[in-house]
């Protein structure tokens, strides 16, 4: 289910990206997170269970850091949605050993 969950979160990110102006730093942080999440999904498809945490989890962590650190600009609703996405990503990260 991990790729499906991540794909869902990517779609949420895309909605947020779409609603923000191109000159917003927060938008670029979301773009970075989306990019890392897509790489995470690609990586999941191509690696074995043993190396999963070393090779793929980094992308997931990068996405979470990118999302979590940028706080300037967004309104309250966007921040809540961002926090929700972070929570979901964290959920996947905590269970990364269980992904097969």
């Amino acid at each position, binding site marked *: 289910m991990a790729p499906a969950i991540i794909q869902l979160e990517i779609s949420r990110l895309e909605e947020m990206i*779409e609603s923000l102006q191109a*000159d917003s730093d927060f938008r670029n942080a979301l773009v970075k997170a989306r*990019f890392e999440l897509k790489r995470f999904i690609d990586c999941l498809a191509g690696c074995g269970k043993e190396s999963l945490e070393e090779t793929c989890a980094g992308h997931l962590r990068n996405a979470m850091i990118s999302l979590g650190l940028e706080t300037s600009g967004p309104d309250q609703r966007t921040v809540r949605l961002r926090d929700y996405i972070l929570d979901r990503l964290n959920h996947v990260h905590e269970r990364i050993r269980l992904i097969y």
Partner: protein
Amino acid sequence: MYQKIYVPVDNSEHSLRGIELAVELGRRFGAQLVGCHAYAARMHDIRFKQMEFTLPAEYQVEEELEKQRSIHDTLITMGLELISDSYLEVMKQQCALAKVSFEPRMIDGKNFKVLVNDINNNDYDLVIMGALGLGAVKDSVLGSVTERVVRRTKTDTLIIKNTSPLEEQLNGKTGAGVKNLHGNGGNIVVAVDGSPESFAGLKSALALGRELGKEVEAISVYDPYLHYTMFNSIANVLTEKASKVFKFKEQEQLHEEVIDTGLAKIYQSHLEVARQLAKEEGINMKITLLDGKAFEKILQYVRRERPWLLVMGRIGVHSDAEMDVGSNTENLLRLVPCNVLLSSRRFTPPIDLRAEESMTWTEEATALLNSAPEGVRGVARTAIHRYAMERGHSVISRKIIEQAMAPILPRAAMLAMGIIAEEAAIQKISEHHGETYICKECGYAARDVLPAACPVCGSETAKFGKIDKETIQNLEKLEGGMVEEVAFDDRRLLWTSDAKQALRGVPSGYQRRRAKAQIEKTARVRTLPSITKDLVLEVAGEVMEATGSLEERGRLSQSETAADESILQEGEFSWTQEAWARLQRVPEGFMRDGTKKRMENCARGRGVSLVTLEIAEEGIKEGLKAMEEMIARQAQEKEKESKKR
């Protein structure tokens, strides 16, 4: 609540418990009771005649046979009447003790038929019947008479499945005799699915609960797994080409989004409405939302909670009115280990109550409403809810408020309240005059300076596209001026005429709507002031290429794309958009050609050159008439031929 209760009796354990409950309800509601026993004297008569040949030889004489037939006839008729009388006597005595009005009935005939006939031809409010009759065996769960009656009547029916003494059912037992978790004989559980039948069931349950001192609770089940199953199933059979057309990934994603929030919210809102209805009657009702297959989850819940009564709509929210019994209800009726009330009445909660529980307001919309003077907020909220419900919305946005208020408030008042603020917002967006470069690979936006490489995906400079608003504004003039269009999410966007023309290269229907939405989305992400032809080709080019081969084969005719125009010139006639679209629904080939000629003839007959939808429908009607005549003629000829043979 109940004024006339009908109780079919047969002296079985279930029937006796039904009588006791009916008497109790009759006493509490002041209802009249009608007890009925159906017996089949004719069936016995037929059977006797069939078995006459097995009689000993001394009876096989004409006169003796006649005598025996007469004796048997009298015995059977009288005997069955006596038996019926005895069954009904039990009920009569109980009614007399409880001072409840009672009317006995004995009917000769096929049991379920006469019962159905009696129920359908009288004004009973409630039928109380045992789930099983005298013919029940160990594994029986629902008797055939009960099942047939339930299927053929539309009166509320309470099916007795619990044969414990009524006192125990209603008041429970203490100590070792406790048979349920609550110690009070069990609650009343109402399964609510948003159908009028289930809400009427809730009202009945509340009345029963009040009279019998039972707690009432509501449960609702939504199924978020069906779509996963469907998508997995589809994924296994779609070809690569088909999955591209179907946009499988996007569809799956969309459904996940919908299932994630939508279904749960809808069913939760049904429960909230139910709770409000109970609250209006002074009852604080427990509600529970379950997820999974409806009948399975309700069954598990009932097995765990062991209620006294399960109340369900006879049919569910997705059933046609003609349906006899819904599938979930049917399964549960067989399997639950408690009494069941099937509600056939209908009750629709007031629209305001439903809206209050099911509508979500965006923060912006809530703030806007709160900016209105307090005295008018309630009225405005109701008006907005009604407007949104009538149009099938589930989220109230600023746009919905604007639309709902337009016929009510003058424009100046809406401006003053800030309801119309979109124009100001568009103005604000266009204030940034600097250059922006967007990475075409990942969407990273660089302001004022073109980066040497993308800091996100590492793409080279060439991958960056410049968003130059001035150039786009110049292009607008070259591309035939601007047209304002409402986007998929109700926002307004500007399209050049060339861009609109280019979009017609995408096949009409789902693919074009999708392409349009993608283009609009891209334009907004890039904060473009308008949509140009280049953008359309960039975003939708792939779809156009993929469908190009179809156009060559003539499956997507020019006429199909032209259906978007308001008036289409075709030969000597002009066609409205709807009329042309109607014609396109006729199967291609001789049928469409023939229908077109008929439509044109109709227009000619009226002396007009514009084919409207009305004329198109008239032409189709004439076509159907001609076809019917042709079929009738052929049938006649066939008949003549067969006669000749």
